[in-house]
């Protein structure tokens, strides 16, 4: 039995626990889900055509990644995500910063973005196919539509969240507007911007799959679609897991890069 003292130590609101405990929690969860999945398959509670066993999914995974064509699918999917994401970021970040800095640009950019944001990106797919066929442009465009407007609104919010006292401090040190924007607002914004980009990257993955499910002849989404035609649920599982895994890796890279780039961040401001 744990003493209540120890329990209350672990369940302190928003306090750290030893990282050993944290990782134990994470690993146990994963293993548990895997075990339940395995058990369900072993007891044949669900037909294997609907739920392939973990073992089967794993061997499929090994098989698939030892073929070059699967890596092609992975490569093309990553390419699309990054192009769509970069396009959205390159245009969206400056617009968001402008909207968060000047009320007039806000009035031009934000209401429109809010409006379009509520139009679901998948609804644009037929239109995009009419405009751009099913080439790369189409996929990138769908990812762009899905993430851009959201990005602009979030970056504008991040910009508005920059402490006004910092701006005042810059003014009293002789900074004019341009310098204040470039030398204070932009650097102050960076850590938050990075978190926003990380979130948007997650969205970009979602829209990638949406785009590839309907309008593609390559990529991970397409491989899932193709597998469905032949009831290869194991391949569908692998496809979903690989997409999840890639997303996780990119997400972790963002976190790592953030730590390297902004060692000054954190603490009180």
């Amino acid at each position: 039995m744990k003493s209540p003292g120890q329990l209350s130590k672990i369940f302190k609101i928003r306090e750290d626990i030893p990282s050993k405990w944290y990782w134990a929690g994470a690993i146990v969860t994963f293993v548990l889900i895997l075990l339940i999945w395995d058990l369900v398959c072993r007891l044949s509670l669900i037909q294997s055509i609907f739920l392939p066993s973990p073992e089967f999914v794993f061997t499929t995974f090994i098989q698939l990644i030892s073929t070059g064509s699967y890596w092609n699918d992975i490569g093309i999917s990553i390419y699309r995500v990054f192009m769509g994401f970069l396009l959205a970021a390159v245009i969206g970040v400056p617009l968001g910063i402008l909207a968060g800095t000047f009320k007039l640009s806000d009035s031009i950019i934000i209401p429109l973005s809010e409006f379009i944001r509520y139009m679901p990106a998948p609804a644009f797919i037929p239109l995009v196919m009419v405009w751009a066929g099913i080439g790369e442009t189409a996929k990138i465009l769908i990812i762009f539509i899905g993430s851009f407007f959201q990005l602009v609104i979030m970056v504008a919010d991040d910009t508005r969240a920059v402490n006004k006292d910092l701006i005042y401090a810059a003014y009293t040190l002789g900074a004019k507007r341009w310098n204040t924007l470039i030398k204070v607002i932009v650097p102050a914004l960076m850590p938050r911007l990075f978190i926003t980009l990380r979130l948007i990257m997650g969205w970009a993955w979602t829209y990638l799959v949406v785009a590839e499910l309907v309008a593609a002849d390559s990529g991970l989404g397409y491989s899932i679609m193709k597998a469905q035609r032949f009831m290869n649920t194991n391949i569908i599982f692998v496809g979903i897991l690989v997409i999840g895994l890639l997303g996780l890796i990119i997400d972790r890279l963002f976190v790592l890069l953030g730590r390297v780039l902004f060692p000054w961040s954190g603490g009180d401001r």
Partner: protein
Amino acid sequence: MAAEVESITEAQRAIDVVHLTKIYHTTKKEIKAIDDVSLHVDPHEFVSIVGPSGCGKSTLLKILAGLDELTEGEAKIFGEGITGPGEDRGMVFQAYTLFPWLSVRKNIEFGPRLKKMPVKQKREISDYFLKMVNLENFANAYPKELSGGMKQRVAIARALANNPKVLLMDEPFGALDAQTRSDMQQLLLQIWKREKTTIVFITHDIEEAIFLSQRIYIMHSHPGRLADELNADLGLFDGSELVKPAEFLKLKDYIVSLLKK
């Protein structure tokens, strides 16, 4: 003749505030933050403004810094009307406002960097002020690694590195513990004596105001009005030692009684 003499001294004043009124318009109502305040600060003078919370101290300082606009009256710096913020008026804020992405040294060099000073000169300036606030060993630290007192020392150094004619300080030591606070007060006095900066210091700590300043303005709240102007340059202290406790108490009691009204 008399008028002429007066106009000369007025032009020489570091700060001249005449019948200043500030009204904030919110969606619901109008708030008169400052009502008809007139005050002045001479060059090299250390003047404190004391008053209860909400009496418009920060508002007044922001107007002097050019960060806010007055509604009526005049506010002049060395005879010229204030039209906006400028490097001639440095400011140390109530809250911590160091740039978190810059090291202590880079924070201090922020003003000189805006002026595009050569690297060597910037370095000399930051060295000088790092030494002044005893933070040579923290030149490369980020603000998040500093204690509250250290942060405010950097903020003072950063403002002074710009060589302002006037230093505006808004309760800079308000968030510090008693010991750190008293260390900071002594440091500030040292700096003031050495640099001969004009300082306008806001506080609601009466003893702090008496210890630091030559003159004290007392304000009332709702609306923010001037209650009195006092001479505090009475030689009450020798260094940090209180040598005239009776006079000190008298002055303090008087201010307390004013604030109670």
